């Protein structure tokens, strides 16, 4: 049962995730923008 397999060293190339980093950046922008919007509202009141 417990046969140990040799693990391939992660020599395989990293996948192309350009679209992902752009997408999460948009998410990050929305978070930062809405936070500062309410922060501004707090300061103005």
């Amino acid at each position, binding site marked *: 049962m*417990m*046969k*140990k*397999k040799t*693990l*391939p060293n*992660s020599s*395989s190339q990293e*996948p*192309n*995730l*350009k*679209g*992902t980093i*752009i*997408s*999460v950046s948009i*998410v990050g922008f*929305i*978070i930062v923008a*809405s*936070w500062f919007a*309410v*922060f501004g*509202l*707090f300061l103005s*009141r």
Partner: protein
Amino acid sequence: MAIEKLLKYEQDSRFPLTLSKSESRLYMSFISFAFIALFVGGLMGLLQVLVRSGYYTLPAGIDYYQVLTVHGVVLGLVLTTYFIIGFQYTLMGKTVGISDTQYRVAWLGFWVMTLGTVMAAITILYGKASVLYTFYAPLQAHPAFYIGLALVIIGSWIACFVNWRQLYVWKKKHPGEKSPLLAFMVVINMIMWFIATLGVAASVLLQFIPWSLGYAATIDVLLSRTLFWYFGHPLVYFWLLPAYMAWYAIIPKIIGGKIFSDSLARLSFVLFLFFSIPVGLHHQLTEPGVQTTWKFVQIILTFMVVVPSLMTAFSMFATFEISGRRKGFGGLFGWFVHLPWKDVRFLAPFVGMLAFIPGGAGGLINASYQLNSVIHNTIWVTGHFHLTVATTVILTFFGITYWLVPHLTGRKLTPSVNRLGIIQTIFWAIGMTIMSAAMHIQGLLGGPRRSSFSEYNGSEQVAEWGAYQVAQAIGGTILFIGIVLMIYIFIKLAFFSPKGNEEFPIAEEEKDAEPTPMWLEKWKLWVAITIALILFAYTIPIMDIIQHAPPGSAPFAWPIGNN
């Protein structure tokens, strides 16, 4: 690296297991109960938005707050808990299996929960428990309400014990192997649930029940609130994590991809276990009796729980991009265009994911210490959790329903039901966008939550809120149409769809995936860290609350009409 690696898990050899007929009946009982709750609670929601529009009055002297209590209890506590426990049982049944004894104990849990739910429901219907789902003391409901709640919690603990036992037995049989991803996630969620519900159980059993029965003359209000919110925040993660289970380990299969990273998925769940609980004070920021320092400490911990959600966001996009590129869709966003938009099993959870972007951003604002005073107890908060739980979580649960119910009843998801499901998702998206946006804006303008229609002092400010309340009624009505559609779909899938075998999609890892490190299975360590964080975050505040307690509060039953 000197980390001990586990054997590569051969998924094809062992699962998914087959669910027996009787097992399926158990799981369907939980899920059917959830859909009954959806209809009842949804109808209440419709009544609420109509009343608040100012153009409708409840018939037969029904109290708005009674309707609101039903809405919150039935949707926030009953629908979610039943669906989650049922869904999690199916995940365990598929990955690690269930024994005869475990099966019988699981039924016991179902009946204990159901007895409790029925008790609480009757009390509410008699108008003896219009205390909303948070039941803040010293408003006093009939003792049957609190006893019913205690039974629901105890019944859910039985599900915890069964799930833990299921994985334990499996691990004994498979020494040295990593536990199946979905079973790992279920057990994490149930550990979190158990530790969190200890707080509310303590409050209900030691404070509310003796006090409502008259054995204790007074109640420590602040302590009861603190114990409630010790439970109240992990409660929302108890809702969210099953959705994350589907996102991490089921959606990839539906879109024809693989799990992005088994280890990162597990790591994010471990982080949720750590940081979901010691954060409840962020619901109590505007309270007079809690020390500022400890409020701020828990704010920091609250921000930590954002990290695993950031990881999840990345994993989701990465899964989409990798599987799209593998199918040959190049360019920056070619993978996005070619996602299976016409498959409701994907579309509904995807809309849920989108809703979590503003939902999460809003959550950060709510927890941001001083900023909380801008939105605290305004209808912004209602708008917030209608994005998170009532869109992200519920649309993911609907997405699960489309394949899980036919899988359990031996039927097929037909193209026509699929099409109806897409329409349902669109209704939900539109209705919720209108309702939630109106709630967010009205909240920023100061409009309160949990309030029946009122013109207050008739000022211009209040008149300005009126338009948003009408918008909420429009959005809420569209949502109710969505609920009716969903109930129809559920009945169709459960009883009338053609017989067949609907797939239970469980995603696999890449063939050459990096093996998951052994240390992720250090259960005792995870529980120990969780408890240590809770002790750190709560010991001093709770000692302070007890030591500097004011005279306790006598019960008040008349404000809720419980005479």
